[in-house]
């Protein structure tokens, strides 16, 4: 066996047509955008998009993990907000608080994720409804908290540096963070027992359980990870905006789901690749951006947004014919 060529051909064979098409759609969008304005092809614009996409990318990573299990996480909006607000709030507690701000924010997200995970894995409540409820609870907690204590809500320097700084000139740090998380996710899904178990559970939890996999623990960990990643997205968003605000997560729920699915991950679980999610995230970000700068009434933007997503899915996201 010539290892290298063997690996390579496997790689090409494993390339999901959906992923390839999704990347094709990205190019198409850019070309269409450039008809409207040259600057859509400028490096500044593209980097700017990549930076904005990173936040969605990080959040969608967690969402993907959960979707691979055949579940869904609707608690994203307030998990993002909680992560951001708690990280900022921690910074009020002296240098220790400032140093621990980021981990604390992420930890709060993991906490919400754990509640989701316990509900789904141990209480067997459908994820769609548990996460809806925890979202409401997280919102409630944040309202109480904000109203009661006037917490600090400006981001720490570290948060701002991670979100807006550039260790390598020209390339925002947050893009690196996304890349790092992405690489970890790919490794997790492809090379670890956990990843195998995730796909296994997504395909058929009963069989995974009978194979001696601790399915409940894995489901719980996945939800916790999703919560943590949403919160990390929130922390970075707070760094980007230099402050936390309650509604900051609202704009991320549906796009995160759409990005994962546009990337070829089956919403029923058990199938999907991270590369696809990357493509989906970039697609959604570009589409939103191009629509936001075209001088068009909001109504038109909404209609085009919906129609384009449907068309792209029809292009490559269809289930196989049944016979």
């Amino acid at each position, binding site marked *: 066996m010539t290892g290298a060529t063997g690996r390579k051909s*496997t790689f090409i064979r494993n390339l999901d047509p959906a992923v390839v098409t999704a990347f094709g759609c990205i190019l198409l969008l850019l070309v269409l955008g450039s008809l409207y304005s040259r600057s859509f092809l400028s490096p500044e614009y593209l980097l700017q998009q990549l930076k904005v996409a990173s936040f969605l990318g990080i959040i969608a990573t967690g969402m993907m993990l959960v979707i691979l299990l055949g579940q869904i996480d609707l608690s994203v909006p307030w998990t993002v907000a909680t992560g951001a607000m708690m990280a900022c709030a921690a910074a009020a507690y002296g240098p220790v608080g400032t140093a621990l701000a980021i981990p604390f924010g992420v930890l709060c997200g993991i906490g919400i994720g754990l509640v989701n995970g316990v509900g789904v894995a141990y209480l067997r409540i459908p994820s769609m409804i548990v996460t809806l409820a925890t979202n409401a609870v997280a919102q409630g907690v944040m309202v109480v908290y904000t109203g009661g204590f006037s917490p600090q809500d400006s981001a720490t320097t570290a948060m701002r540096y991670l979100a807006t700084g550039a260790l390598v000139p020209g390339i925002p740090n947050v893009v690196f963070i996304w890349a790092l998380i992405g690489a970890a996710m790919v490794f997790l899904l492809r*090379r*670890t*027992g*956990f990843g*195998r*178990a995730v*796909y*296994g559970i997504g*395909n*058929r939890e*009963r*069989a*995974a*359980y*009978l*194979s*001696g*996999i*601790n399915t409940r623990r894995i489901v719980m960990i996945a939800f916790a990870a999703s919560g943590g990643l949403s919160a990390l997205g929130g922390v970075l968003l707070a760094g980007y905006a230099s402050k936390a605000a309650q509604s900051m997560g609202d704009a991320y729920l549906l796009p995160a789901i759409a990005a994962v699915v546009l990337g070829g991950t089956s919403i029923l679980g*058990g*199938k999907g690749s991270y590369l696809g999610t990357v493509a989906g995230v970039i697609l959604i970000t570009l589409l939103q951006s191009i629509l936001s700068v075209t001088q068009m009434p909001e109504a038109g933007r909404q209609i085009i947004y919906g129609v384009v997503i449907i068309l792209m899915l029809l292009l490559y996201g269809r289930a196989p014919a049944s*016979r």
Partner: protein
Amino acid sequence: MESGAPLFRMEGISKRYGGVRALENAELSVRTGAIHAVLGENGAGKSTLIKIMAGVVAADEGQMTLDGQPVTFASPAAANAAGIACVFQELSLIPELSVADNIVIFNPPTRFGMIDRKAQRRLAEEALARAGAADIHPLALVKDLPLSRQQIVEIAKALARKPRILILDEATSALTSADVSKVFAVLKRLRSEGLALVYISHRMNEIAELADDCTVFRNGSKVASYAAGTRSDSEVIEMMIGREYHSVYPPKPGPLAPAAPVLETRNLSWANRLHDISFSLRAGEIVGLGGLDGQGQRDLLLALFGVLRGLRGTVLVDGRAISIGSPAQARRHGIGMALIPEDRKTEGLMLPMTVRDNLSLASLDRLTRGGIIDRPKEESAIDRMMTLLSIKAGNIDAPVGALSGGNQQKVVIAKWLMRQPRIVLLNDPTRGIDVGTKQEIYQLLRRLADEGAAILFYSTDYAELIGCCDRVLVLYDGAVKRELAGPEITERALIASALNISSADPSHREPIQ
């Protein structure tokens, strides 16, 4: 073959699934008033053929004629309208609907556009009675019935359509022998009423009892058609597997030297399904679980494997009392238990995942270091299993769903053997498996036992229990009624104790369900 124009005829049928040729220029013709048995190994194309006949799958090429007229079926409904009803190998019942809903599902009686529930119930009761299962309540939900009852409902559902051609694809594979004889009576009556029946089964004795005509398939093509009784069993089997065929069962080693049991239970009880079960299992021993289907055998296996909650009594492994709370604990080092589950499609395998992923799924803990998969180790473990069980898979990175049923079953077994279990629980592992593969499985079991595994083996097939087991525990109503050992294991003894009667005339007793 007897004369008379065939009622239905298929010629030159080919069907390809991706790269797999399921059928290649296949043909079949059936006549009225006869039962036509279709035989063949797993993956020979039998199910595919009848799916085409029933309009579930579209053929790539070929013609079908009904009453001499060419026909094509765009959907199951179209085939149904032409008078073809089919009991599929994979049950086609809707689990969340009631028995009555399911039975009339093709053509429910309506009033004012709404389903007439009274009439529906009447029809359902009629059909259940025809299928010899009047004891099934029409309002019960299908998902609440045991598999064997579901299969009867499936037959009743086909009968309710008043078909001209009735197809049964391994329709009796989950039935108890009492149910089988009822079904056979029904089939014989239908034959006398002038129906054409197509009957697929891997059980030779059933075919001998029922069939008028036989067709043997191999590798997607017809090998031969002949009138029933004109070929010997071994001739038929050789046609099916394409090679010579000897005794199915490996020789038994005879009584073992006494040794401490590996697995032992004392007064094991669960809910009102298992009662005071006590037995022991030694290394090198194959112990069968017999009895009518649904007498607690499956529950017993699940209980041992840590799936059931609220067990009472004691389970001992190596003489140590343990409590197992999950399959994860059951497979642990020190216990080393494995369970080959009943339904490979929903419990054994992830059909869309690759053969590789399926094989290593139960051994992930052993194949990973710090959570990371040790690829060379995985590779070699998989290679070992592929050869050990001679699994036929073109590509181990192809979905396991693309393998034939028999090979899928081997994958299920292999994924557990990879852990080298000390205690192997098997839940009817040969259901719907062809003779060739069955033989391989029997030999494998014996080899495992010889290598020191303790095997507990549930089968609905008495011949299997007789052929393979050193001892058989016969369960009745959740309790061990009798333990048979060595030469005591005979069909007569098995049936008698299964029906919980001491003298042997089982045919007049109804099984309790």
